């Protein structure tokens, strides 16, 4: 069953041109994030009040912000925090969500009902309020923003994993392995998890895109990453009053967020098509 998703998948992905474009774009962002210290023309934290709200020039290709910091440098360094928030948040959500989903599908009965109930409660709770509450409780900072992003993604991850795992648990191979007394972890690793991988991968990439937006929405509400650390959402939300006077300060992070979220989605769609050839 894994064979179907195996050999042909990379080729199918490469045929999906939009997805390839997205992947290339993400690659560039990752390079920017890793290479920021070498690529950035300035220290992103150095304040130069005398030179604030500067337009684009040879010295500052994207101009400067309210405090005279170089926008391009902040954009490059901001890629690190923004990627950390979305990737870190979604991966932690996946770890928790997958555990919950697998446990529910495997144990069934009351465990399943309890976990489904929990997921339903979280899904019907207004997500922005949940995020605000997490940040208010933990105190503001990159760490708590990451937890807020994870809290947003956990129920979706749990739901997707449970649904895929349920079909796996009903299979003859699993029933047989259970009858033979194989260890739970072994069966899950060998027979259940592989079936979850492709829907999880597709869902995760889509969530990654949404996570970038959730983090930026939190910045809009004045929460999120702490200054002076550069983060795209904060740059955009604090630049929104400048849309008319110093447009690049808002456009640059806005375009960056859109591009990254879009790329994650495209890659997600490409992966879904590639891993599940029926589509």
């Amino acid at each position, binding site marked *: 069953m894994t064979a179907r998703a195996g050999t042909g998948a990379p080729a199918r992905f490469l*045929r*999906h*041109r*939009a997805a390839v474009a997205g992947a290339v774009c993400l690659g560039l962002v990752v390079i920017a994030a890793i290479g920021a210290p070498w690529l950035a023309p300035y220290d992103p934290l150095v304040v130069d009040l005398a030179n604030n709200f500067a337009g684009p020039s040879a010295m500052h290709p994207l101009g400067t912000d309210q405090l005279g910091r170089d926008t391009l440098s902040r954009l490059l360094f901001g890629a690190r925090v923004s990627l950390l928030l979305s990737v870190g948040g979604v991966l932690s959500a996946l770890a928790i969500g997958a555990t919950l989903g697998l446990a529910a599908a495997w144990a069934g009965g009351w465990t399943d009902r309890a976990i489904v*109930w*929990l997921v*339903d*409660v*979280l*899904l*019907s*709770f*207004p*997500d*922005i*309020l*949940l995020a*605000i*509450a997490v940040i*208010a*409780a933990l105190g503001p900072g990159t760490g708590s923003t990451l937890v807020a992003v994870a809290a947003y993604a956990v129920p979706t991850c749990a739901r997707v994993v449970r649904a895929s795992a349920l079909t796996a648990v009903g299979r003859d191979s699993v029933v047989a392995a259970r009858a033979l007394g194989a260890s739970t972890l072994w069966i899950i690793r060998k027979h259940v998890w592989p079936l979850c991988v492709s829907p999880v991968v597709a869902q995760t990439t889509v969530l990654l*895109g949404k996570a970038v*937006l959730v983090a*930026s*929405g939190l910045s*809009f*509400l004045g929460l999120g990453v702490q200054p002076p650390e550069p983060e795209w*959402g904060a740059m*955009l*939300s604090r630049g*929104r009053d400048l*849309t*008319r006077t110093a447009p690049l300060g*808002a456009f640059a992070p*806005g375009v960056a*967020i*859109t*591009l990254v*979220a*879009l790329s994650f*989605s*495209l890659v997600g*769609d490409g992966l*879904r098509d590639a891993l599940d050839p*029926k*589509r």
Partner: protein
Amino acid sequence: MRHAAAAVLRTVPTLLGVSVLVFLIMHAIPGDPAAIAAGLDASPETVAAIRESLGLNRPLHEQFGAFLSRTLRGDFGVSIRTGRPVIEEVAARMPYTLLLSVASVVLAALVGVTAGVVAAVRHQRWLDHVVMTLTLVAVSTPSYWLALMLMLVMAVWLGWLPAIGAATPRHFVLPVLTLGLQSAGEVARMTRATLLDVLGDEFLRAARARGVSSRRMLWRHALGNAAVPIATVLGLRIGGLLAGTVLVESVFAIPGLGRMMVDAVVARDFPMIQGGVLVVATSYVLINAATDVLAARLDPRLRT
């Protein structure tokens, strides 16, 4: 009918869980509603008096018991911030949020299904990629930014539409456009995926060979089968929009539920948060239940 009743009944434990969660969250986060309500230059006596009158100095389990029994009797209490009954505050905002959500989902359905069908029919051709990428651009843009850009272009530069407010249907065009386009991406994606599922590659090949008449078949048969998942996505979107439009409501100055709840959190207005969250969660689970029932109507295999 029995199915519908069962679906509604299943929402009860979820709502109970939501009540517990909102209560716990409100008491776990820092911030004293009495201090905020009293204002910055209030005396500690005033703050203590307000705290007492709100019942905030009683033990937690007593507060929760009181909250639950009041809620069950349909009494959501009085807002700390405004001094008005929570139920009135919610009722005043509900119509705006409902209108915004429903109109956005209708727009999302129109744009999303069309885009999804076009993409599916042209599977893996350039039109597929272009259409899907375009519908995803709106989803990928931070909503408040999209809203401000639309406002700048349509209201200030072109002068076609009013910039803010909720007085006339024209006022809703820009917010509905913002939210609708953002939801359209998901609908398009679901439509495309389901259609590809239903059609299969052979069907596509055959359809293309037979030309026009198969186009009708596509619409009737394929879309008929795709209706269930599409309805599910739309249901989820309405549910999500009912709670999650605070950013767009703030930008367009629409007095909706999202803004009300965020304002309430900022002021730690417990009764208002509890009331708002319960109403939003109730509509969410009811819409989900309704979608399930509808799906069962459309697809007999799902009937249990």
